């Protein structure tokens, strides 16, 4: 989907030549995000992609771990090696036990200034976006948010980051001129997970962060874990049934929930449907919502605007139900049914119930 069609604004008008002070900037870095003792999968996805970028550039891939204690940091560093890193920078200090903007931004900025990577990648999560915006501003460098694709421009070795634009109607490729590091955030589930290879090893580079708790203004009072883990279950669901404006009314979402129960699926929605208040914002799939990679995606009454497409086209199998035979969703779905979703959904729910009943009998 990322093949250029009409180049509109050539970047050639501005110089690509790198300032000599940036020539020492080498290597690709991935910030390893961890919450409650677990590395966020987006960090592994980034290591997989970072590996390709580093190989193309002929440089090393490094993980960056900021943690409160050494045992956890060592385990996270090992995971970075298993997922493709050559080395891992670890900064360990009790102040870094929980994420806070000020100490994390200060530590990561100091690391970048000391060890000078050419590319720094973070997950486009609430943590990654908070941290990346601060670090890029202090470093006065370019940051491209929410990318859907990363590549190296073979002509000038710069990072070409592709992301949707104009509310997801078009895609654009963004480059950072004459500033280092080139920073980008990528959303969870946009990139595929690399294979975990526990035989891989790497070197740990431990740095001493210059921090003291009494210098940190913001205090964490408590962490309240979610009772419902909706976010995780949608992003990592095997089957998703999603609805768009073609479902006409909020009531008709009941048909989706019925099918979701029959399949053991999660329910997703497009932005207009969320804006209309038919479902909660945590179920929104697309550029301004979540990115998903299920095994099966059933799109009911969804036209397939790019805004939505970028969030779900990584699905293995896509079934599209739409009465308009010219709807863009049919250009990239696996199977299409040209019909009203309100009629097809109940039939599908019944068929799945039958299918499961038949399986049970056979056993």
């Amino acid at each position: 989907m990322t093949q250029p069609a009409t180049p509109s604004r050539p970047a050639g008008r501005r110089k690509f030549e790198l300032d000599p002070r940036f020539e020492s900037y080498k290597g690709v870095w991935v910030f390893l995000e961890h919450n409650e003792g677990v590395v966020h999968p987006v960090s592994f996805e980034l290591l997989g992609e970072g590996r390709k970028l580093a190989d193309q550039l002929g440089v090393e891939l490094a993980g960056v771990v900021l943690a409160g204690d050494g045992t956890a940091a060592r385990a996270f560093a090992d995971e970075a090696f298993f997922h493709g890193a050559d080395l891992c920078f670890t900064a360990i200090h009790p102040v870094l036990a929980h994420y806070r903007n000020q100490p994390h931004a200060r530590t990561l900025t100091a690391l970048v200034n000391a060890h000078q990577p050419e590319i720094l990648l973070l997950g486009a999560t609430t943590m990654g976006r908070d941290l990346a915006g601060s670090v890029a501003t202090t470093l006065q460098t370019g940051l491209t948010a929410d990318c859907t694709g990363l590549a190296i421009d073979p002509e000038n070795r710069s990072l070409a980051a592709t992301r949707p634009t104009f509310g997801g109607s078009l895609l654009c490729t963004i480059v950072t001129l004459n500033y280092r590091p080139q920073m980008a955030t990528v959303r969870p589930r946009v990139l595929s997970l690399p294979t975990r290879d526990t035989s891989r090893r790497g070197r740990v580079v431990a740095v001493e962060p210059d921090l003291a708790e009494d210098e940190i203004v913001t205090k964490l009072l408590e962490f309240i874990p979610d009772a419902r883990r909706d976010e995780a279950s949608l992003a990592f669901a095997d089957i998703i049934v999603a609805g768009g404006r073609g479902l006409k009314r909020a009531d008709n979402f009941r048909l989706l929930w019925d099918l979701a129960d029959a399949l053991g699926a999660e329910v997703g929605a497009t932005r207009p449907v969320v804006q209309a208040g038919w479902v909660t914002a945590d179920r929104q799939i697309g550029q301004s919502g979540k990115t998903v990679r299920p095994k099966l995606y059933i799109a009911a009454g969804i036209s397939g605007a790019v805004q939505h497409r970028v969030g779900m086209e990584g699905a293995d199998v896509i079934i599209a139900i739409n009465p308009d035979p010219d709807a863009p969703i049919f250009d990239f779905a696996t199977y299409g049914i040209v019909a009203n979703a309100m009629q097809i959904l109940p039939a599908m729910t019944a068929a799945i119930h039958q299918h499961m009943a038949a399986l049970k009998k056979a056993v």
Partner: protein
Amino acid sequence: MHILVCIKQVPDSAQIRVHPVTNTIMRQGVPAIVNPYDLVALEEALRLKDQYGARVTVLTMGPPQAEAALRKALSFGADEAILLTDRAFAGADTLATSYALASAIRKIQEDMPIDLVFAGKQTIDGDTAQVGPGLATRLEMQLLTYVSRIDGVDPDTNEITVQRRAEGGVQRLRTRLPAVLTVLEGINDMRFATMADMFRAARYPLVVWDREAAGIDDVGKIGLKGSPTVVSRVFAPTARAQKAEIITTQSEQPDDIVATLLAKMFTKHPQLRAAIRPRLA
């Protein structure tokens, strides 16, 4: 308390269409709106004003037409509005935008110090969520992003306590003012504008600042020149070579179509059978 709310006028992206033949954006007739996430921030600021008493100033950077966004904010109850507009700001990326806004905010502070800067979670046209963090860094204020609830402000200790959305849970954080807050969608409902405020908004003499008025001397820091990132190309997503296999039956009955589809799918993608794990009703 002095609260500043940063807003942006954006095209209503739900109404943007791409020309099917030329693959270019059809801008004509697309209405301009206040970025919906910024209205959540404005409402949160107005609630603090109701509760603690505050002056609420709204700031936007944009073309002269962005005046409409400021008047909208005034009609909801903002006290002051400043439009930052200059051709030199055009083409700014997030770094150049936060530079210009931070300069204007420092200028506003000369008149009255600011305790809280509010911004939306992100815009619906850029979707970057980077300007808020950029402002906090430049203004050396504490940063609290993705705020899902303001628990309270303590005027004696000059502290604010908020809940912040994080992965898998919510952080309760306390910080000292001044601070920059970006707020999550869906945490409040925007109030209705009163007739009195609507009249006041229409008559309000807008403060309009150009680059010089905002105290910006270095043109190399703003607009296209001050932007480290450039768009190298814009393109329409291309269709996959393989289009959807359209399932039809002679009867055209939903039951038959679905049966055909499932038979085909389970044959071609047998791994999907194991993915089905029905929930008990």
